[in-house]
C-alpha cells in the first residue's frame, strides 16, 4: 500500500470523510474495470462498484487490520460480483466446456469469427472475447480478468481472492485452456 493510500486509510478510520471521498476518486475506475470484466455489462458493473464502496464505508472499523487496501477493496468487489453472478445464474450460465455451450451462442461466436469486414473486426473480436470470458465459472473468470486483462500479479490476485498462489495458477491454467479451445479459430 502506498504511503499516500496509508495516510488516507488512516484518516478515514479516524472519521475523516474527505479521505474516504479521495479513496473513492482514486479507486473507482479500478473497481469498475474489474466489475465490468466480471459482469460483462455497464449496469451490473455500476452496481458492483457502488456496493463495493458502500461496503468499504460500512467496514470502516475493519480497515485497522488490513495491510493492502487495494486487495481488500478488490476482494469486496469480486465477492459481490460472484454473488451477483450466482443470482443471475439463470440468465448468465457458466459453461464448463464448449459442448455445454448453447447452440445459438456457438453459432454467434463462429459467425463473429468469420466476419470479413475488417473495420468491425476489433469491435467484434472484443465482444467475442468478452463472451468467452463470460462463460467461465466465476473464480476462473476473475482470475483471468485480474491477471491477464488487468495485469495484476499472481500474488495480488491471490491476496484479492484470499487463496494460495497455487490455486490462482491452477485456475489460470484451466481458464486459459478453455479460452484457447473456445477461441481456437482466432489463435
Amino acid at each position, binding site marked *: 500500500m502506498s504511503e499516500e493510500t496509508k495516510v488516507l486509510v488512516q484518516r478515514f478510520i479516524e472519521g475523516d*470523510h474527505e479521505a*474516504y*471521498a479521495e479513496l*473513492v*476518486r482514486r479507486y*473507482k*475506475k479500478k473497481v*469498475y*474495470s474489474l466489475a*465490468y*470484466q466480471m459482469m460483462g455489462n*455497464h449496469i451490473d*458493473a*455500476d452496481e458492483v*462498484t*457502488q456496493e463495493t*464502496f*458502500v461496503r468499504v*464505508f460500512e467496514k470502516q472499523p475493519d480497515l485497522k487490520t488490513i495491510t493492502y487496501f487495494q486487495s481488500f477493496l478488490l476482494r469486496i468487489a469480486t465477492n459481490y460480483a460472484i454473488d451477483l453472478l450466482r443470482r443471475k445464474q439463470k440468465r448468465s450460465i457458466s459453461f464448463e466446456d464448449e459442448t455445454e455451450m448453447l447452440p445459438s451462442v456457438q453459432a454467434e461466436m463462429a459467425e463473429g469469427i468469420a466476419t470479413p469486414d475488417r473495420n468491425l473486426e*476489433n469491435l467484434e*473480436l*472484443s465482444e467475442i*472475447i*468478452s463472451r468467452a*470470458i463470460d462463460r467461465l465459472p466465476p473464480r476462473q473468470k476473475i482470475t*483471468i480478468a485480474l491477471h*491477464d*486483462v488487468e495485469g495484476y500479479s*499472481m500474488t495480488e490476485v491471490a491476496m484479492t481472492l484470499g487463496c494460495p498462489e497455487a490455486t490462482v*495458477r491452477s485456475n*489460470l*491454467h484451466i481458464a*486459459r485452456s478453455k*479460452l*484457447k479451445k473456445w*477461441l481456437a479459430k*482466432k*489463435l
Partner: protein
Amino acid sequence: MACQKIGYYLDDFLSGRLLPAERGEIEAHIATCPECKKLLEQDKKLLALLKFSAIPDPGEEYWLNLEKSILSRTVDSQPTTRIQEWEFPKRTSWRYIPVLAAVIILLMISISSNLSSSGNQLASDEKASQYVYEAGVIGDYYFESPRGGDAVGLLPDLMEALPLSAPGSAAYNLAIIMQVWTPVGGHN
C-alpha cells in the same frame, strides 16, 4: 521435463519469472516438442487477444455521477446532528456571571428593604417586648428604627415579615451574611 509440467509453468515462462536454469529447461523442451511449442504460441496469442476485451469508457460524466452517488449513499447519509449529552458548563458560562451578580444584588436590595420596613413595624409595635427570648439558639439582634429610637427583636420574628424568610431558608441565611442585623450578644 514432462509436457504437463510445461503447461503449468508457461505463464511464469512468458512473464520471465523463472530462474535461468528452469527457463533453459523449458526452452530445450519446446525446441524438441511441437505440441508444447504450439501451446506456447497459443498462450502468447491469447494474452494478446485478451487485451481486446478492454472495457468501453463510460465517460467523464458517468465518473462524476458515480462518485456523487457513492458519497450520497455513504458520507452524505450520515446523521449530521447527534443527541447532545448534558455537560457541565465550561468557559462559556463566564458570560452569565454579570447577569447572576445583578440578580443577587437586586435580591439583596429587595431583602434589605423588606427587613427595614419590618423593623419599623416592629419598633412601633408594643408586642415587641413580649417576644420570646431564645438566646443561644438563634440570638437576638439590635437595630435602629428609621423613625428614631432603638428596638430589640428576635430575628425569627423579624424574618417572618419577609418572603421566604423561614429560619434556614436562603433569604434568612442571606440576611445574616449581609449583616443587615448586627448581633449585640444579649438582650437588654
